[in-house]
């Protein structure tokens, strides 16, 4: 495939973090490409730098080397605000702003002036977005600090969607939730993936979840890609020793080398 045909491609991404004089290699030549509209799943044990990969894509941390292309264009040639508006992100722990749920959902559109001309100040649009994440309209006026973890995470998702992104980076969005809430959010993501043109990069440490979600994916261990391909077949024919160990649940957070 021509590089321009990928929605998102990550090439030789390297991240070195200063660590009290002993720089640490966090991402080691990570590369993958994502088709428009698909769910690309990154799975790996904790500490394998899955979050760092997403953060480097969204430039919340500056990659040391390599590049990221959005529609074939290197993202470091885009204004940072434009990149972050087009590539949204949902974090592991929901972090809501002070104010109401509606304030949170409309944070991005207000920044970017998308709702400037609307008579109701974007209220209808905000309520619609809440509906898309399965929250009733009366949530609009609730205070953002009175939500359960699952509700807060759904508001975070609605808040990210409000920017009308092309790609959504999901950093273990269900890991901080109780099993019931996690299932609700996961189903919601699956439905969004099926119903929208949105492209997802989904990160999880949970192998069972990775089997349920994702068209393509990769296994990240210790900041390196050890295996990638279509899902869920990737996990059925593990070719690599690290994959085999991780699949057998024996890798944990330990380094492999």
């Amino acid at each position, binding site marked *: 495939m021509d590089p321009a045909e990928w929605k998102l491609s990550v090439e030789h991404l390297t991240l070195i973090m200063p660590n009290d004089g002993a720089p640490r290699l966090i991402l080691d030549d990570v590369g993958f490409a994502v088709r428009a509209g698909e769910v690309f799943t990154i799975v790996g044990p904790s500490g394998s730098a899955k979050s760092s990969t997403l953060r480097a894509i969204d*430039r919340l941390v*500056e990659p040391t080397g390599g590049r990221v292309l959005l529609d074939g264009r290197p993202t470091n040639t885009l204004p*940072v605000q*434009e990149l972050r*508006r087009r590539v949204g992100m949902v974090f592991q722990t929901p*972090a809501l702003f002070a104010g109401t749920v509606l304030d949170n959902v409309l944070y*991005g559109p207000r*920044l970017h002036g998308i709702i400037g001309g609307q008579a109701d100040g974007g209220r209808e649009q905000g309520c619609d977005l809440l509906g898309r994440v399965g929250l009733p309209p009366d949530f609009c006026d609730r205070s953002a600090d009175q939500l359960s973890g699952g509700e807060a995470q759904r508001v975070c998702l609605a808040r*990210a969607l409000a*920017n009308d992104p092309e790609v959504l980076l999901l950093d273990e969005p269900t890991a901080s939730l109780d099993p019931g809430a996690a299932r609700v959010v996961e189903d919601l993501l699956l439905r969004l993936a099926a119903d929208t043109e949105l492209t997802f990069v989904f990160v999880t440490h949970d192998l069972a979840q990775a089997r349920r979600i994702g068209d393509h994916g990769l296994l990240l261990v210790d900041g390196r890609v050890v295996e990638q391909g279509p899902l869920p077949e990737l996990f059925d024919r593990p070719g690599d020793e690290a994959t085999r160990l991780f699949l057998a649940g024996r890798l944990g957070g330990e380094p492999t080398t």
Partner: protein
Amino acid sequence: MSEAWFDKGLAVIAAQQFGYLDVVAALAMLAIAVVLSYRERLGLEKDLLVASLRAFVQLMAIGYVIDLIFGAERFIWVLLMVVAMAAFATFTSTRRARALPGSWWIMAAAIGLSAALTLGLMLGLGIIDSRARYVIPIAGMIIGNTMTVASVTVVRLLEDARDQRPRIEAALALGATPRQAADDLIRGSVRLAMVPVIDSTKTMGIVFLPGAMTGMILAGADPLEAVKLQVVIMYMLAAATAVSATTAALLTPRRLFTPQQQLRRLG
């Protein structure tokens, strides 16, 4: 301004002789603070002792310097003295905020701008005399207050940025600029830094009888004259600290965030 009363005030205070034994007696009171700090494990003993010793040496030294400057009565010396005060204040604030690398220019801007603005205005409008004995004590009050306010503002912003990293990064990820992402923090830090100034202004005269006024009254000045001077100083300090806090708060995001608009990892 009531120059005669001011001069007389200084003269009367100077006329009451303090011996070094009196200073030692006052030191005993400091011992109470040190013992308290030790018993409650506040860890402030060393800071308290060093600060007190430094204050003593600095004040002794400055006594001689001021004496020379008052004697020479050359504006250039006054200016140099004021710049030296501001430089030292900048150094002190920078050390306070050492978790934020390269914060010295934020402190320099906050202290320098607020001091230059208020002092310049007071001198330009002829509210205070440009003679050393007026400019130096007033500059000292302004710079001392703007220093404290600049330190509090920056340290508060720094701590809030650390505590609220997830929220700030969530805002950045939605396309906010660093200024937008840190908006609440900026306002919160200015508000906090201004609390002492606002509260002491509020209670002025009831709880708090400030030094300049006390000195003049002790010296036998008309209380109304003393009050007028104090009111001038109070308004000036409110203006100076507001400028200092705002400047510091608006400049700090430039060091908290990278040019690529990422929140730095600090200490």
